[in-house]
């Protein structure tokens, strides 16, 4: 429509210039003296009636001459006009057919009527044929468009990927500079302190012997390894590329270990992943490139559980120790380990007397569960054990009705005694081999609530603000309402659950089968992804972690798969 208004405006403009007095006359004169204009008037290519209209509209040429070259021969089954005829409402076509012989209807013989009827039927048949062809054509057109859009999507997808890569690099550069600034600040303080000390008189010095000690202590503690202060929440950007993959599609596959993957975790999508395997390896990976960053050495046995959070890595091992690592150091300086074994180690926590089966940390508190049937709480600032919780003692004190025999033996000898732990502030949740989930108060060291329902060992557990999800060897996943303490949702698979991870949108779990089971919480739909989809011979998935639609899964053959979900 805007074209039409534009057109009318142009017409009005030309008219007014023609009408309005002297100025237009001189204008016309000037034009006439131009050879181009003369040519236009005197050549008969353009007629005057055209001149009036064309001067306005033909300025935007509809079809430039170069478009008029490539005219392929017509191979369409039906012409556009036939399509047009077929699209028009039936009555207008039908009335056309009857035109001319409408007056003679009465005089027609039976035979003629039949012939007429046949004619009209075959005409209708023709129309149907055209309409069918039209619809088929439309499908072809849509297919072509879909293909085109797909290729466009691929281009834009690649663009997002490369932009995100750039973001990532800039972001790490910013973080590095931040760290350097902090370092300089600390050094400056030191210099000031020393300066203060050097400018003092001998008398003052004597008085300050005690001070001197405290200063040297301070310096020592400053040089000691502390938790990296850098926080991922400082990041300005978050990777979102995984959202644009088709759910269930593989993003990457890494041959991480020579034997089954026992545990893994990562910080952010396309960030840093740490994996451990039965081959005793503990490896750090760059997920965006799929490269090995380094192989961490320190544990004397296989790592059974680990967690990555805010550049801190905690690992629990079958050698009964827990190590806390500065993951930031590992990533920024992957070769430092060659200089000394403890280059990245912040703490070694070695009070447990049995294999570590579960750990979890949040802020400066780490809790660990061990085969020695105790749970220990550690302060990550000092590296000291704050308290020890004895599950059996707590159970007998709290719940005499419940048999301790079952606890001692467990339902299942294969499952670790303490299958899973998670803490937040003063709250602690544990899942144990007796199938009971306990909620503890870390301040009192008492069990606040027990959640009973699982009929076999609890192997994995995770809670958020509202819900607690547990997976068990009884093949079921249960979602508990933390406030009410009752079951919110539950579902079962075909084999014992080995690991579980959930966010607001989905619960991902592995159960010793070769696919990862996903439960879409919003759509309440179950589906699965993994190598087992389409390949029944694929090895089983042993562990899974997921964040924001980005899922990492470890397999029984040591392969780590990264998927979109």
């Amino acid at each position, binding site marked *: 429509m805007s*074209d*039409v208004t534009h*057109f009318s405006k142009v017409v009005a403009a030309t008219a007014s210039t023609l009408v309005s007095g002297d100025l237009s*006359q001189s204008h*016309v*004169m000037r034009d*006439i003296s131009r050879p181009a204009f003369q040519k236009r*008037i005197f050549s*008969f*290519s*353009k*007629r*005057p*009636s*055209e001149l009036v*209209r*064309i001067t306005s*509209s*033909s300025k935007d040429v*509809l*079809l430039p001459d170069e*478009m*008029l070259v*490539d*005219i*392929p*021969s*017509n*191979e*369409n089954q*039906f*012409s*556009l*006009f*036939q*399509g*047009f*005829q077929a*699209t*028009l*409402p039936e009555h*207008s076509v039908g009335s056309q057919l009857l035109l001319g012989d409408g007056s003679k209807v009465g005089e027609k013989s039976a035979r003629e009527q039949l012939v007429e009827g046949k004619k009209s039927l075959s005409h209708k048949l*023709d129309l149907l*044929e*055209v309409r069918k062809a*039209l619809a088929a*054509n*439309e499908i072809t*057109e*849509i297919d072509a*468009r879909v293909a085109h859009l797909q290729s466009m999507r691929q281009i834009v997808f690649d663009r997002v990927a490369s932009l995100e890569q750039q973001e990532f690099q800039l972001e790490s550069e910013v973080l590095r500079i931040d760290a350097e600034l902090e370092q300089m600040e600390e050094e400056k303080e030191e210099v000031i302190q020393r300066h203060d000390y050097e400018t003092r008189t001998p008398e003052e010095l004597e008085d300050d012997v005690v001070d001197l000690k405290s200063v040297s202590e301070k310096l020592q503690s400053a040089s000691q390894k502390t938790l990296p202060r850098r926080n991922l929440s400082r990041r300005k950007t978050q990777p979102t590329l995984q959202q644009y993959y088709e759910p269930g599609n593989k993003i990457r596959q890494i041959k991480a270990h020579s034997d089954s993957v026992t545990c893994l975790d990562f910080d952010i999508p396309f960030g840093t992943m740490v994996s451990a395997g039965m081959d005793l390896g503990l490896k750090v990976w760059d997920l965006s490139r799929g490269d090995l960053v380094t192989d961490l050495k320190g544990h004397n046995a296989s790592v059974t559980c680990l967690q990555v959070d805010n550049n801190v890595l905690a690992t629990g091992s079958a050698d009964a120790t827990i190590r806390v690592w500065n993951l930031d150091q590992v990533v920024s300086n992957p070769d430092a380990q060659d200089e000394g074994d403890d280059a990245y180690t912040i703490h070694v926590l070695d009070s447990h007397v049995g294999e570590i089966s579960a750990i979890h940390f949040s802020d400066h508190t780490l809790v660990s569960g061990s085969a020695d049937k105790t749970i220990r709480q550690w302060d990550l600032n000092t590296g000291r054990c704050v308290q020890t919780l004895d599950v059996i003692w707590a159970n007998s004190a709290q719940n005499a009705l419940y048999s301790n025999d079952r606890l001692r033996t467990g339902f299942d000898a294969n499952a670790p005694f303490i299958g899973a732990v998670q803490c937040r502030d003063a709250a602690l949740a544990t899942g144990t081999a007796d199938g009971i989930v306990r909620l503890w108060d870390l301040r009192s060291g008492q069990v606040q609530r027990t959640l009973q329902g699982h009929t076999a060992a609890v192997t994995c557990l995770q809670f958020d603000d509202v819900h607690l999800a547990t997976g068990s060897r009884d093949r079921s996943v249960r979602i508990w309402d933390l406030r009410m303490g009752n079951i919110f949702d539950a579902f079962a698979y075909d084999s014992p659950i080995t690991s579980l991870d959930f966010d607001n949108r989905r619960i991902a779990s592995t159960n010793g089968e070769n696919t990862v089971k996903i439960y879409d919480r919003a759509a309440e739909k179950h589906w699965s992804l993994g190598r087992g989809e389409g390949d029944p011979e694929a090895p089983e998935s042993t562990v899974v972690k997921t964040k924001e639609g980005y899922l990492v899964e470890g397999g029984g053959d040591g392969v780590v798969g990264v998927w979109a979900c």
Partner: protein
Amino acid sequence: MKKEDYLPNLVDIESPLSDEELYVLSQQYNNEGDFVSVQTRFNYAWGLIKSRKVEDQQLGVQILAQVYKDTPSRRRECLYYLAIGSYKLGEYTDARKYCDLLLQIEPDDPQSAKLRQIIEDKLAKEGMIGIAIVGGVIAVGAAVLGAVLSQKKR
């Protein structure tokens, strides 16, 4: 379908659709949004070209030109309708250009030849009027020129 149905009869050009029919076509055209199909575009464009309103014809030709650009396999057909549209708009140069192109590809096509003939007839008629108008303009121009010059001489 019969061969003669392949292209519209030239008499058809001057028989506009009813408002309702055109409305249906425009509705369909608008409803299909960004991904409107070639057939729908053609239907609407042809409906518009058959109309008696110049605005409609303009829009129709524009849509047709777009179809021509987008779908090479329909170009040959589009040329015919573009020729008709341009003819109805009075843009005879374009109409003739399209027609000549058609005849170049398919010299024996009776429909194109017929259309070409109609355009030529119209051109000849307009030419006579045109010469008259141009003559008039030149006469007025000369008069004005004379007046200006004679004024200057004084």
